[in-house]
């Protein structure tokens, strides 16, 4: 009996220790600077998909954000205080963003929230930030509904009506394709929105949607949908999805002997896409926010710094994460305060801010208009094709 009690105590301690360690880990990501240099800290919350289906996006975005915060701290922080980034992982799961953002606001008392890449998850967190009057900046959620939630919600990337137009024009002008099929992820607001705007533009320009099929994020088998798309003989297939599924879709399309070109949006941009799809990804196109090949001086130094720190080239999510942190801190400095309402007003008046992804001016709808770039996949790497201005 005694041994059993001892064993129980042992197990309980073990569980407690694991829990404590598990809880502490995500919060301790920012590096502490030399003490005495700063008077106090400014806590900035971030929620990102560090694990799960869209982990590659969450990690890139987080790396970019962290890089910006570290640099800002090295340059003296803001308002004489040290900036501290508290990051929470939402596991790419629906339901988690609400929990972790609530935790960041009520328990950690963060003064602003940065996040997420996926529109569905930004849409989940936005009402909570709005209610608590905490400014939120989404680095790369492109669904227009995100900023419609309220006047505390901002973004620093272009929105899907623009991205849809860009890809519809691309299909018409570059691919010379009129009959297009669309394959949408019904679980993602991003995918549904982008498909809708693409379709509107395509039809307005005299194109035709010959097949519309759908899948649910997390699916693995797309052969049924692809077979019926193939039977409708399109000249191109638009897939506004995320890289995990798109990678499988491209691979399976090749297995079915599909030859027409496939293209999509910024949800494609991860090297995981090439890993999963293999050679099937060659020659496909997608639109995104940024390319490391672009020649702007600021972008160049960013690429160097990012590469030195993370040993890989930054993607659009990293660049937007970086810009979102810079813009937030700029607003804090301008407001001269960490009060939610003052930061909000300062953010809303952001004008001609030069960042890595171009010039950011926040409009009355708290959106920005920025150029889009089109990339293609060549020999397992992203290659810059063209920039399309808004």
């Amino acid at each position, binding site marked *: 009996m005694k041994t059993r009690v001892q064993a129980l105590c042992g197990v309980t301690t073990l569980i407690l220790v694991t829990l404590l360690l598990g809880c502490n880990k995500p919060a301790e990501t920012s590096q502490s600077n030399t003490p005495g240099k700063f008077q106090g800290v400014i806590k900035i919350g971030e929620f990102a998909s560090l694990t799960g*289906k869209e*982990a*590659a996006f969450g990690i890139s975005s987080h790396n970019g954000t962290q890089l910006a915060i570290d640099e800002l701290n090295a340059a003296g922080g803001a308002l004489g205080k040290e900036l501290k980034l508290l990051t929470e992982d939402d596991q790419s799961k629906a339901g988690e963003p609400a929990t972790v953002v609530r935790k960041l606001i009520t328990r950690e008392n963060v003064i602003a929230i940065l996040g997420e890449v996926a529109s569905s998850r930004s849409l989940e967190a936005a009402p909570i930030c709005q209610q608590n009057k905490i400014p939120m900046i989404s680095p790369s959620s492109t669904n227009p509904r995100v900023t419609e939630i309220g006047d505390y919600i901002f973004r620093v990337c272009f929105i899907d009506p623009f991205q849809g137009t860009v890809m519809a024009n691309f299909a018409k002008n570059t691919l010379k394709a009129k009959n297009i099929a669309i394959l949408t992820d019904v679980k993602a607001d991003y995918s549904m929105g982008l498909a809708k705007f693409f379709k509107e533009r395509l039809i307005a320009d005299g194109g035709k949607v010959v097949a519309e099929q759908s899948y*649910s994020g997390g699916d693995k*088998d797309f052969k*049924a949908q692809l077979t*019926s798309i*193939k039977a409708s003989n399109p000249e191109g297939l638009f897939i506004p999805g995320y890289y995990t599924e798109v*990678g499988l879709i491209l691979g399976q399309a090749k297995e079915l*002997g599909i030859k027409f070109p496939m293209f999509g949006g910024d949800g494609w941009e991860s090297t995981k896409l090439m890993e999963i799809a293999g050679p099937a990804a060659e020659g496909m196109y997608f639109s995104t926010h940024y390319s490391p090949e672009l020649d702007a001086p600021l972008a160049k130094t960013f690429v160097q710094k990012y590469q030195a720190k993370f040993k890989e080239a930054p993607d659009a999510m990293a660049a937007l994460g970086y810009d979102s942190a810079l813009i937030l801190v700029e607003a804090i400095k301008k407001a001269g305060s960490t009060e939610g309402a003052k930061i909000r007003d300062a953010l809303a008046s952001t004008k001609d801010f030069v960042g890595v992804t171009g010039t950011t001016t926040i409009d009355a709808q708290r959106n920005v208009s920025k150029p889009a770039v089109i990339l293609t996949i060549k020999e397992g790497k992203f290659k810059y094709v063209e920039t399309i201005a808004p």
Partner: protein
Amino acid sequence: MLEFLQQLINGLALGSIYALIALGYTMVYGVLRFINFAHSDVFMVGAFCGYYASKVGSRFLASGTVTAAIVVFLMSMVVCALLGILIERLAYRPLRERSKLTVLITAIGVSLLMEFTGQLVFGADPKSFRLLPSKNLQIFGGLVFNTNQVVVLGVTVLLLVVLQMIVLKTKMGTAMRAVSYNHRAAALMGINIDVVISFTFGLGSALAAAAGILYAISYPSIDPLMGVMPGLKAFVAAVLGGVGSIPGAAIGGVLIGIIETLVSGYVSSTYRDAIAFGVLILILLFKPTGLLGQPTVEKV
């Protein structure tokens, strides 16, 4: 017509994987009369074993060759067989004389334990796993077969035949059937029940490992929660075919695969699972024991 035939091929390839997983459910049910929910996670571990085995193996054998693939299959099947035996020994055997509900809930616990340990150990982000290079084969001017689909179908049929031989022709198979019929009587006849049950778990888990690798060949993106949906579908397949019946599990698996593919292709992928599970309800309404299940008589 061509499109319909292509959809049938797609469905058959998907269904044969469901069938392989369903076999594990059905065998354990046949012998122990309980559903081993951790089976779908052994399937996941099988895929990851294959992933790591092929990584290590690529140092010794040229990757992408048939020999390397066979080695990967065998290694993963052995590891999972041992894992299955271990799970039974640690989690289920101490509860064998308890009520079925206790074991069932333990099985769900083991399943969750494996899924989340998997997230810790393997990482939660999907990994890409390519075992064999694939090539397309065209027949009848337009119908496309992929070499991977041929491998999946071939391995499934082979394993089904081997399994049926083991159950019907070997001494161990006879013992399994005896235990399934009445384990007390079997024990009285001198059959070592523990050995038979361990063997059943080992065999079922080896099949799950094979299914895991076949699944990864068809869908080269594996993650620790990859077993959840296929496991559920395979469970439905086992019930559909008549739980406890090996040919039933095979037929059930293929049926579910084809129904899913046809619904996604012709109706909408949103209704795919609803219709697949709806079919299950319909069949159970009219044939409660499943397609090939034997009606059991409860004796008082």
